[in-house]
């Protein structure tokens, strides 16, 4: 197992190098002169020449890539063109905001999705199965922004139960430590604040988690149905075990692999693709950060944002791969 994990970590190296080549290429694939593009059309020749000198654009590409990698290794993601501040210090709070939101969205999606899938498979063709699968179909098809707006309308505007946007109450900012606000509030032992932060998380988590929930529910159901036809499940029944043991011990574990794959992929999608949700809920996450950077043509930020999101995507898939071998002893790489 340890050998496998080590091997898997080593395999990460070429993947990471590939990622940096692609993000490095972004700046150079922009048609025309990058310095010109960055500075805009009205820039003077001297300014462009200065910037080219500063960015090392006069060097050959391999040398430029070498500089880029060296900077990355030192944790230097460059400077934002818009705010003129270090990207590495700007990006973490936003990444933490997105990770926190993704975590709660996936907890919601997995808990509801897996259980709905199990019960649907258990009571196949029952009214529950029918309703749950219809709900899942609606969940997959529903536009996220519409769901988000409806949530705000009903639960924030009309009922006033939950805050409509932001991560915390304005005018009372938290002193961030990890930038995971739930964690930070707990570290400060500030439980009322933790509750407030959690309340802020509910609506965006549901909006973001609905599509993964629906996909997970459908995958769990079909995977469970397939497993429940198998010979070893018949053996378990023939041993005299009840439905609960059959389903939650044997069938669920055997049905987990495809579900886990979907969970991994969906988590990755949420990390990078939460721009709509983050915009509607004014969530200061990485999706919005990159989105704004695109608007301002802030190339270093776009580059770093993509790199960081891709990095987490790879890490999540690594975790999923490791979980495979933990669940299924037959899987050896």
């Amino acid at each position, binding site marked *: 197992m340890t050998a496998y994990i080590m091997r898997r970590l080593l395999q990460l190296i070429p993947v990471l190098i590939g990622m940096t080549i692609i993000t490095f290429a972004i700046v150079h694939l922009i048609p025309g002169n990058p310095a010109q593009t960055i500075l805009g059309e009205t820039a003077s020749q001297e300014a462009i020449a200065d910037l080219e000198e500063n960015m090392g654009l006069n060097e050959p590409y391999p040398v430029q890539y070498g500089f880029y990698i060296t900077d990355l290794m030192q944790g230097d993601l460059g400077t934002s063109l818009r705010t003129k501040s270090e990207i590495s210090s700007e990006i973490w709070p936003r990444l933490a905001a997105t990770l926190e939101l993704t975590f709660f969205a996936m907890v919601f999606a997995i808990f509801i999705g897996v259980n709905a899938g199990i019960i649907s498979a258990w009571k196949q063709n029952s009214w529950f199965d029918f309703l749950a699968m219809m709900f899942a179909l609606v969940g997959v098809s529903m536009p996220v922004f519409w769901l988000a707006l409806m949530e705000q309308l009903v639960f924030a505007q009309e009922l006033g139960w939950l805050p409509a946007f932001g991560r915390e109450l304005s005018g009372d900012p938290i002193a961030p430590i990890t930038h995971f606000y739930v964690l930070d509030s707990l570290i400060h032992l500030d439980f009322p604040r933790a509750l407030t932060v959690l309340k802020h998380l509910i609506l965006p988590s549901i909006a973001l988690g609905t599509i993964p929930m629906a996909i997970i529910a459908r995958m769990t159901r079909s995977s469970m149905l397939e497993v429940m036809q198998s*010979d070893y499940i018949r053996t378990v*029944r023939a041993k*005299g075990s009840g439905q609960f043991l059959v389903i939650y011990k044997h069938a669920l574990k055997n049905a987990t692999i495809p579900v886990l794959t979907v969970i991994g992929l969906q988590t990755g999608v949420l990390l990078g693709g939460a721009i709509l949700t983050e915009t509607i809920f004014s969530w200061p996450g990485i999706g919005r950060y990159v989105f704004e950077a695109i608007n301002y043509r802030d190339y270093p930020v776009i580059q770093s944002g993509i790199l960081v999101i891709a990095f987490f995507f790879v890490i999540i898939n690594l975790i999923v791969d490791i979980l495979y071998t933990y669940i299924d002893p037959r899987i050896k790489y």
Partner: protein
Amino acid sequence: MSDIVLELKDLHTHFFTDSGEVPAVDGVSLTVNKGEVVGIVGESGCGKSVTSLSVMQLVPNPPGRIVGGEINFKDENLVNASNKRMKQIRGNEIAMIFQEPMTSLDPLFKIGNQMVEGIRLHEKVSKQEARNRSIELLKLVGIPRADEVIDDYPHQLSGGMRQRVMIAMSMACNPELLIADEPTTALDVTIQAQILDLMRNLNKEKDTAIMLITHDLGVVAEICDRVVVMYAGQVIEEGTTREILKAPNHPYTKGLIRSLPNMKQKEQKLYSIPGTVPKPKMGRIGCRFAPRCEFAFDRCFQEDPALYQLENGRSSRCFLNDKTEGSLTGNGETIVGN
């Protein structure tokens, strides 16, 4: 013989499919006595597996359902038994092993885990006790290094070893009846012989009755005391193994035995019964085998033959046994109507 362990009376298990009702088991009656090995023989699709699953009430429902008859296990009719009662019986009083040892064990749990689970479902023993007993059982079924194998996963064992594990698991609670659904079909011939030996030993030592489902008359000859031949969801002949193999009565059984390869036979081509097994369907009239039978006459197509009782407790579902037909073997009398 007395001491009946299992008695099926006119059992009907039907499948309700989109294309209609299918009587997979169509009025099967048979008995298994204490300590006896009864073979149920027939071609694929004759209803022998569904019969065995019906006893355990493991027929997939939907689409399958027991629609009539009795399954008497030691004077208790299991057709009406509650789910709770069936859970007590399965694996404890009646155990079952299956055709496919490769897929019959859960691939994600260690052998020990699966055996201990089975024992602890029925007996209040500690995990350690159950584990010790599992190791003993594995030794009993001839698994070398039993104390290591118990911590193996199924994929680390061969097919024969897995079937031994299945047998060990089935014997864990000393069942009175073991249902073996083609336990040797998927195995090599040498392993087959070992598994049959093992089952016979268990039968002798623990006095466990065995209901052995097979399509292999060689297996029957090897191990069974008595044989029940099934065709298209019905019992068509029953008797002791020796008599049935030596002097089959029903034309179908005769055909089955003729199609066995014979060492003395010089012919190149093996005999086969012409035609195929009819698909079971509702409301069929006449002998099920008549369309393939070389002895068939008009009556075979117009009436359902009863199970004619012959000497020595034998029976056969063929009009040739009807005295009024004045036939070759006309010495029977009707016992079970149809």
